[in-house]
Structures are given as C-alpha cells and as structure tokens.
C-alpha cells in the first residue's frame, strides 16, 4: 500500500510541478480522477508502469549492449555456452517476486472496488441503442440522456460543421446524470437491447451493461464538476455517439435539483391524470346510458 501511495504522490508531483505542460501530460497518461478509487487505480497504474520501465531499462540495456559489443564486424569470437542453471533460476524467481509485489496492492484495491455497501444514493443506468436511461431508485425521477444536438449535427457524414467549433464534441448530452458530491453513489447497470459499458474515466471504472442482468459499481466524487465518458462496449452503428456525462453538485444544490425534478414530474403527470379521470367518468356515463336503454 505504501508503495502505491508513494508512486501516486510521485505521479502527482510530476503533474503538479509542470503546470504548463499539464495538458500535454494528461494527453499522454491515465487520468488521476476525482474519486478515492480512481486515485488508487492511478497509483497502481503508475506503480506497474515504473516497474515495467525499470525492467525494460535492464533488459533492453543488456540487449543493446550485446548488439553494440558482440559484433562479428568487430571480430567478436562466439562463446560456446548454451545454458547456465544459476542464471536461469535467478531470472525465473525474480519475476515471481516482482509479480507478488504487484498482486498484493492490486488485490487490496479489488476488494475495495467490490464493496458497494453503505451507499447513500442508488442510480439505475440502462443502456439503449444509443442512449442511456438514468433512474433515481426510490426517488421517482428518471430520464433519458442522449448525444447533444450540436454534436449530433456535426457528426453526420460530410456535415460541413467543424468538430473543433462544437463545444465538447461528442462528449455532451441533453440531460446529464446529476449526483451529490462526497456521497457514496451505487450504480446499478443493465441494458435493454445489446451490451453496452458505462464509463467515466474520472471515476476510475467502467462496467458492462448486460441485458437481463444487473451489474453494480460505486463511486464517491470528491470534487464538484462535470465529468465525461463514453460507452465502452461496441453496441452497433452509433456506439461512438452515446456519451456519458455526470454533473457532480454539492449536496444542497443536488437536493434542490432533485426536488425540482420531482416537482416537474408531478406537474407534468397531474394534468394527464385529470384527463384520464375525466375520460373514465365519461365512459362510465356512456355505459350507464347504454345500460338504461
């Protein structure tokens, strides 16, 4: 764990020390993200990356040295050895030790990811070809979330609209998922037609949305803001055009937003209910008339 943390701190320092180059760095590397899990995953990523770099330096170093030194053109005379049991044991055992060192922190993070207990809000996400449906379980709020119209117009074949002129091209939706900051949100993920995958890189994870089955994951976003991702499992023609946008609001703003959604929903359904009731009365009246005759 300490190693992960140290690697994470080193990574952060590297990002922080060069703020002008920050954009460039973020174009090259995994995002640190805004959740405990995403930071831990980033730390693991950096740990393994540096281990691989270290091994690469050693192995490639020996290869390059051999290529540079043991040349026929330099008159090198070949040795005749064809095995060395001691060396072979060493380079079998050392990788095993390194692997164990990687596996321990990885397993620990895995256990944490798996623990969805104690969530404070549950959102059910359903994938459709090609949009998402968000349902706030027990709150009576649900809506669809599709690619924003500006992006949709620009992405048509030969639309003549430059993608660069569209804000958040392909990463904007009409109705983003809204969640409270600093709360453990449990996400239940399923799909209605084919398999999709719900992914927000800043939350550190993706999970497949599988028709007929419900998957679980969780996140707790520490920073308010807008976080963008995409469907990550090929789901047909418009797979590239069903982004995920999550807006993280402070708790009070989220409460206000949720209340407004609920009120709007009630207001929308009230007239409809009245009309339905009226139609019923008329029908019953008509039935009575018919019976009387």
């Amino acid at each position, binding site marked *: 764990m300490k190693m992960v943390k140290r690697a994470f701190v080193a990574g952060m320092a590297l990002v922080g020390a060069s703020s002008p180059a920050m954009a460039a760095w973020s174009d090259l590397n995994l995002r640190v993200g805004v959740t405990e899990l995403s930071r831990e995953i980033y730390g693991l990523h950096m740990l393994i990356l540096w281990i691989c770099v270290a091994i690469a330096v050693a192995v490639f170093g020996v290869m390059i040295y051999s290529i540079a030194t043991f040349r026929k053109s330099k008159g090198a005379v070949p040795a005749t050895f064809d095995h060395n049991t001691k060396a072979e044991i060493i380079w079998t055992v050392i990788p095993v030790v390194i692997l164990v060192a990687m596996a321990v922190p990885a397993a620990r993070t895995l256990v944490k990811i798996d623990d969805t207990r104690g969530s404070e809000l549950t959102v059910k996400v359903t994938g459709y070809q090609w949009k998402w449906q968000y349902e706030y379980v027990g709150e009576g709020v649900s809506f669809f979330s599709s690619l924003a119209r500006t992006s949709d117009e620009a992405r*048509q*074949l030969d639309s003549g609209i430059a993608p660069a002129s569209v804000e958040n091209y392909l990463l904007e939706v009409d109705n983003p998922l809204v969640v409270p900051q600093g709360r453990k949100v449990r996400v239940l993920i399923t799909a209605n037609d084919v398999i999709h995958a719900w992914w927000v890189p800043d939350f550190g994870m993706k*999970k497949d949305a*599988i028709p007929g*089955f419900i*998957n679980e994951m969780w996140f707790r976003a520490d920073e308010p803001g807008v976080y963008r991702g995409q469907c990550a499992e090929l789901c047909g023609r418009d797979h590239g055009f069903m982004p995920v946008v999550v807006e993280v609001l402070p708790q009070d703003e989220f409460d206000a937003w949720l209340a407004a959604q609920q009120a709007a929903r009630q207001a929308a359904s009230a007239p409809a209910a009245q009309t339905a009731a009226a139609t019923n009365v008329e029908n019953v009246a008509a039935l009575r008339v018919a019976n009387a005759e």
Partner: protein
Amino acid sequence: MSATQTQAQAHEHHDDHGPAKGLKRWLTTTNHKDIGTMYLVFSLLMFFIGGGMALVIRAELFVPGMQLVDPGFFNTMTTVHALIMVFGAVMPATVGLANWMIPLQVGAPDMALPRMNNFSFWLLVAAFSLLILSLFMPGGGPAAGWTLYPPLVLQTGDALPLAIFAIHLAGASSIMGAINIIVTIMNMRAPGMTLLKMPLFVWTWLITAYLLIAVMPVFAGAVTMLLTDHFFHTTFFAAAGGGDPVLYQHIFWFFGHPEVYIMILPAFGIVSEIIPTFSRKPLFGYDAMVYATASIAFLSFIVWAHHMFTVGMPLAGTMFFMLSTMLIAVPTGVKVFNWTATMWRGSLSFETPMLFSLAFLFLFTIGGFSGLMMAIAPVDFQYHDTYFIVAHFHYVLVPGAVFAIMAGVYYWMPKWTGHMYDVKLSKIHFWMSAIFVNVLFFPQHFLGLAGMPRRIPDYSTQFADWNMVSSIGAFGFGLSQLLFVYVIWKCAKGGERVSAEVWDGARVHGLEWTVPSPAPYHTFDEAPVVK
C-alpha cells in the same frame, strides 16, 4: 501376379518426376513445398486485403468528424479487418512456413497426410471467399467485432450465416492442418532426431497444433449456438429465455486466449531459429525454451476471463484470472532472457532476418509489458476496451507475430528460391516497417490512457493529434509492405545464387541447410541420420 510385379517395378521408377504443368499443379498438388508456397501467397494476399481495411479505418480517423464512411460500415471494417488478419493472414502464414519447413527440419520427404494438406488449403480459400462475399449481403457485412458478441451480432443481416460458415470452414482447415503437423512430427522424424533434438520451430508448432485441436471445436460450437439462437430461436445467449450473453464471452475467450498463442508461439519458434544463426552460438537454454512454451500453452487455458474483467464477475473469479494471467509473465520472461543470453558473447551480424528478429525482441517485449499492466484487474477497469488494448495487441501481433513471419520469410526464402533477395531493398523494407509500425501503434497507448474507447468511428477533438500521427504511421507502414512484395517477386525471379548452407555456419542449426538451394521438389527420399 505379373501385373503386381509390373506395378512394383513402376513404383521403383516413379521418383524424380517434377511438378505437374500449369494450373493443375496448384489445384491438385500434394507436395508440401507447393502447398507451403500457396499458404504463404494466400496469407500475403489476405494481409493486403485486411491491411486495406485497416487503412479505411485509419483514413476515417485521420481527423475528427465523419468524412468517408458510414459508422455501420466502419464497424464492418474493424470486424472483418480483424477476422481476415487473424484467420487469413497470420495463421495461414505460419501454416505455410510449417508446411515448407517442418519436413525439411525433421528430415521427412513430405507431410504425413499430403492429400488432406491440399484439402485444408483449398478449404481456407473457400472460407475467405465466403467471408469477403458476406460484405455484399443485404444489411452489410458482419459489424459486431471479430469477437461476435451476442446480442449485437444477432442484429447482423444475411451476412451472419455466411460469416459463421466461413469460420466453420476455416476452423476445419486449421484442425486438418494441425493434425497433419502433429502426425508428421510424431512419425516422420529422421532416425536419431529425438523430441529434445527437434528445432524450436518444430517444437513450438507441435504445441500450437495441440492448442488448435483443443480450441477450434470450442469456437465452432460457440458460433453454431449463435446460429441456432438466430434462426431456430434457441436462447443460449438470451436472458429472456434463460440464457446468458456472458456465457458466449466465456466460451469465446476459452477459445480466444489459446488462439492468441496459436499466433505467437510459431513466431517464438522462428525467432529461436534465427537469433542463434546470426549470433553464431547455440540457442541458450534449449530445454527451458521448450518447457516455457509448454507452460505458456497450459496457462493459456486458464486465463481467458481476463478479456472480460468488466462483465461483473464475482471477486473470487476476478482475483483468480488476474493472478493466473500475471503468471504468464514468468515463462514469457524466460524466453526473452534466453534470446538475450543467446546473443550474449556471440558474434552478431545483422542480416535482414536478424534485424526483424531483433525488432521482434524489443517490440514484442513492449507488448508484453502492456499485457502485464492489463493483467492487473483494477487498473484494467480503466484500460479495458480503450485504444490501450488496441496498442497492446497490435504490438504483439504486428511487430510481434508479423515481424517474426517476415524474419522467417527472409531467412528461408533463399532456400526456397535458390537466390539471395535484394539485400539493400530488404533493409529499406525493414527500417521503414520498424519505424512506421511505432509511429502507427505507439501513440495509441496515449489515446487509450487519455480515454479514447476502441471501435469508434469518430472522436472528441482532444484525441485529434495522436490519431493523426497514428494514421500517418498506418499509411507509411502499408506502403512499405509493397516493397516487401517487390523483394519477394524479385527474389523468385532471380538473383545471386546461394549455397546449400545459405548462411555461414547455418548447417549446425538445422537439416534444412543440408539440402541444395533451391530445395529440390522432393527432398529426403532417404532419411538423413541425426547424431
């Protein structure tokens, strides 16, 4: 009685006839060299068809926005590109090399089952004719990815049965090829060639052939279940009828993971032949190489679900597949260390086959590193289905398997044709390939880490720069391969005559260097004796 005698006499005189004339030679041949050549030419053709599709993909991704193709057609391109490259280019190329070289390396006059050999080649032609035909069916070609995941794949139009039948035929062809290779190796080795004296290429192919026989039927079963789900309304993979879409993924990857080793193990074998020859030293740790190959093959059966960490497996399952996958690094590491140790204190020269093998050594190892990174399940939740995985598997397949195949072609081509290839052009081909392959695939690591999903026809503007670099690399790499074709054509036509040994001191590395160059139509009519 007398008739029998005449027949027997006729048999004694049958040898030394050359190949039949004209087209009939190629249609009816049972000669391992002819069939090997046909496999290699076929795979080169498929390499260009699949490569053309890759260029359609990279052209559309050159800049953000949709400029060239419909998103549905884009999906067809990614799907069929992969199917053609895996089953049409890489696998037949290694089978072609096996056909040519295994009899020569074990001292056998031909493959054990020559007629089946012919049949398995022509089945492959039929399979890929059908697959390419499926592109023109109503509803478009297969577009659900080469993994053919349901339920999406069941939305395919009339292309579905064609594509699945093509897979059945290609699978049957592979199984026949594998049986032939196993029977040849087990029964037709020259006297004195014990199993642990076989060249590494023969060893890796023996193990590959067993993998093929083990997993091809599994794949055939999976796609047949797709077929019955589609046409007979069974519900193997539909939750509404008690099935499970994830079941398909388990079955597919139980085939799919050994499949990736089917593509890379023969490549290991080729490189293990070439590095000792040009290091002028015996292969370091021969026994360890054999055992490492066998361990990799065994492990390939118990790691499949690392391709599907995000489907929502239970914790214990994820943990098991993470740990078993990490283990693969051990035997693979042994191989890389042994190749390096072979060069250590050798006397190296850098002929084109060696250059391709060295590029293989460096770039395959990079693919190995990204593979190890993705084995770590929690981090794979980020990497999964992004361009990071695209970068990974292209590193192990293109500068991995394909470079090894090219190394093999340059290594053995003088033996096949009797001529040295154009050395200068071949080196230009190498350097252009080696540079452009990195321009093409290295930036895809960055794209994946920055969050670009795979299999998308258009992308957010933040990914624009590296996509453009990658596309430039793709066109550069594609054009470089035209040079490869020219070098092969030129070498087949003529060139400097080569000796039987071809490469200085190669004789000690294998029996193929004891027969004349070009290798006569029939070799080893009498078995050589191996001491």
